[in-house]
């Protein structure tokens, strides 16, 4: 069992093979997505019955889903569109997932997304005439910092007073919505414009680097995923974040400062969510209306859960959700299924994920143990797993 040299001689006896290990990792997401698609099909079939004159059509889900897929991947433009929709979800998923790693549930990604976009539009408008190589980094930095501030607040409150981040971030989401509305219809509004809208960000806009509208943010999001992975798994900071998330008592014993790490984690998480807003603003809308904002911040929670907070797995998870958004339009045209079906699918994915401890038991996958001690722990229910992913 031991070796003297630096090369470990790991006994392979009793170790699961590659295929079975891959299955134990992928089983839950694959089954969750499959179940959601099936449930979506049932909803499609039965909701059609509510439309006067329509009849029971068992083939309709196939039409709808194939339209959804071809809308997401059918041609180069569709693929680029999927990437554009996925970009903020990657940033947002990273934000939420990074928080999970430190044991924090940042449900405020939506607020940080809005404030990040607000920071980017304010800087972008101010820098609209400045050369792009200066304007773009500064505007993006502004979005990053603004989101960071919105994450710092709940982190700080938690560290000094124990205020739970779920409560404080939800409340800050409302503050962000109202702040955005007040600024866009007030100081940031284009004078004499009939509707509340800001000026364009001009030179600060992300350049298109791919196809018709594939902007720079796509590349930044992919880089961010790699960076966050590196930060978490290759640096002492990431080690501290994960240690605090896994066992704050042991982290304190080991000389780490959990409160400081909580603040830093929430700030960085907020900053990543701020970049999500920045990527939409500088990459897609280029200006802000008072109705700016989608459900990116909330969808990001589903992305992070689906990817089990692994920064690299967040990329395919975000592509899945982004692809559904991108394909929804074609689905509505071809199969007359409202785009809102995509929301239903996302919601069912989330619900099935929350129930994943049950799924794990049904699928007989889970943490592998060996030896009688492991047997004992396996007998206890996987409490808290749903949140502590």
């Amino acid at each position: 069992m031991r070796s003297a040299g630096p090369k470990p001689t790991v006994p392979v006896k009793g170790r699961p093979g590659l295929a079975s290990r891959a299955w134990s990792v992928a089983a839950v997401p694959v089954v969750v997505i499959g179940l959601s698609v099936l449930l979506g099909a049932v909803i499609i079939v039965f909701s059609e019955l509510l439309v006067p004159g329509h009849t029971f059509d068992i083939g309709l889900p196939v039409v709808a889903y194939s339209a959804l897929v071809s809308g997401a991947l059918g041609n180069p433009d569709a693929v680029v569109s999927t990437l554009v929709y996925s970009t903020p979800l990657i940033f947002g998923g990273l934000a939420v997932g990074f928080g999970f790693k430190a044991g924090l549930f940042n449900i405020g990604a939506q607020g940080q997304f809005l404030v990040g976009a607000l920071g980017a539009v304010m800087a972008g408008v101010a820098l609209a005439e400045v050369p792009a190589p200066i304007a773009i980094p500064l505007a993006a930095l502004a979005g990053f910092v603004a989101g960071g501030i919105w994450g710092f607040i709940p982190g700080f409150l938690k560290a000094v007073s124990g205020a739970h981040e779920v409560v404080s971030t939800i409340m800050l989401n409302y503050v962000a919505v109202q702040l955005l509305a007040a600024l866009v219809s007030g100081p940031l509004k284009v004078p004499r414009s009939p509707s509340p809208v800001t000026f364009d960000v001009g030179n600060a806009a992300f350049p298109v680097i791919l196809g018709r509208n594939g902007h720079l943010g796509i590349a930044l999001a992919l880089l961010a995923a790699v960076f966050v992975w590196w930060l978490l798994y290759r640096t002492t900071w990431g080690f501290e974040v994960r240690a605090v998330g896994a066992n704050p008592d042991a982290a304190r014993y080991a000389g780490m400062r959990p409160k400081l790490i909580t603040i830093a984690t929430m700030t960085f998480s907020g900053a990543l969510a701020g970049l999500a807003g920045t990527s939409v603003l500088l990459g897609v809308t280029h200006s802000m209306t008072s109705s700016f904002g989608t459900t990116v911040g909330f969808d990001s929670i589903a992305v992070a859960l689906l990817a089990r907070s692994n920064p690299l797995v967040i990329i395919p998870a975000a592509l899945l959700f982004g692809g559904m958004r991108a394909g929804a339009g074609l689905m509505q045209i071809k199969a007359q299924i409202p785009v809102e079906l995509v929301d239903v699918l996302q919601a069912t994915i989330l619900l099935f994920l929350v129930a994943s401890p049950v799924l794990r038991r049904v699928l007989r996958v889970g943490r592998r143990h060996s030896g009688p001690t492991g047997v004992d722990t396996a007998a206890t229910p996987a409490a808290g797993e749903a949140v502590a992913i």
Partner: protein
Amino acid sequence: MTDQTGTSLAPALEMRGITKRYPGVVANDGINLEVRPGEIHALLGENGAGKTTLMNVLYGLARPDEGEILLDGTAVRIAGPADAIARGINMVHQHFMLVPVLSVADNILLGEETMANRVFLDRKEAHRRIVELGRRFGFEIDPEARVGSLSVGWQQRVEILKALYRNARILVLDEPTAVLTPQETEEIFAVLRRLASEGHSIVFISHKLYEVLEIADRITVIRRGRVVGQRRPAETNEDDLAELMVGREVQLTVDRGISHPGEPVLRLSGLQAKDDRGNLAVRGVDLDVRAGEILGIAGVAGNGQDELVEAIIGLRHPTAGTVTLAGADMTGRSPRDMNEAAVAYVPADRHRFGLITPFSLADNLVLTSYYRRPYARGVIRDGDAIQRDALSSIERFDIRTPSAMVTAGTLSGGNQQKAVVAREFDRDLKLLVLDQPTRGLDVGSIEFIHRQVIAKRDAGTAVLLVSAELDEVLEMSDRIGVMYAGRIVAIVEGRTADKNEVGLLMATGGADRSGITPVEVPA
């Protein structure tokens, strides 16, 4: 308690050829166990030997792959704990299953309510039965007392009463004495003997060899899932049992040798600290620990030992007094500062403090040094150096693991503790603080860890050893401080200390101080 019941009676419980396999391991391999009415039968084995699995099979928590269970000679299938209880099998767990805020009676009635009618409990009848049961087995208990206000010894009795209230005939006690003082242990033993004399059968699980020799009628030893021997106390001794258990000769008491104490390294003066609820738990401790000596702190759990250690190590801010390390004031410094000042700490609760169980063994081995060279350059971790040193620690500290990358949670308790010890011992130390370093470990691991501690002492490290195991303190310490109600009430020489006197000091704080030099206790 000899075999007075004779062999004519059918065994109250018989487990025949019990085999239980888990993926990759055979936890029980054809185990036979026979317990007669009125017998106290000890089950002895190392951690992971299969005791718990066997009892889970008996309690219906695990279904055996092979073998059968007979009660009074009749084969039965036990469907689950409720079924086991209905058949008169009851278990008293090591960690009490009591609700501290409820009364004794309420705890006993939980799940076994005595009803006056369909809606209301018959408290009067319940109280009467509880008091009567207590008397029958030699103790007076107040059914209205809040369980949280009782001592551990009494809580244990409540657990036993709970079982008796459910008409238990077969009682399984899992390490019942782990948290008791010697006096409390004697009292519980008296209760157990009484139970046995009334025909109850008792399965007594323990690590403590001398206890097993004292209380059991028969002893079954299991190792790696098999029965390796059965003995009667009269025909065996501690060395024999230890050898059976471990499979090799074990030195039960580490030869502590002669210590050569030097200058005081750790000096506490007037140290006070509060517990988590804000009550003063350490009430003015003055103590010197010298280089090259082991100072043991004996005390019943909950007399301020944990808070004392945490105040020294920087996890708890002292409210008064000073902590001096080799002449430098370290009062209220952070755990990181203490670590940097060559102070190592082995915490009592390795799952809560000592390890991050979902992390790899390699990461756990650098848990307190991850930020230093060679494990990190700046903020970038050096995975190769971490892996290399992990393999070296695994080798030198004999940590049994398939690799350095498995999560710490999958290791056995003994190997987890070896990992903590490997991490904390593997450098030059001024002060080593050990809080319950061998709790829950088997004799082989205990022997190993004790040797390491002695080696550290002989290298000139000052060692502060806190343990609720009085035997451990007595065996290891050069000097012993007895802690009671937040104070060190006496300091005695380790070599000449008398177990009963120290036990008495632990229990009373010094009501009888004959032959012991008491320390000035500040008012």
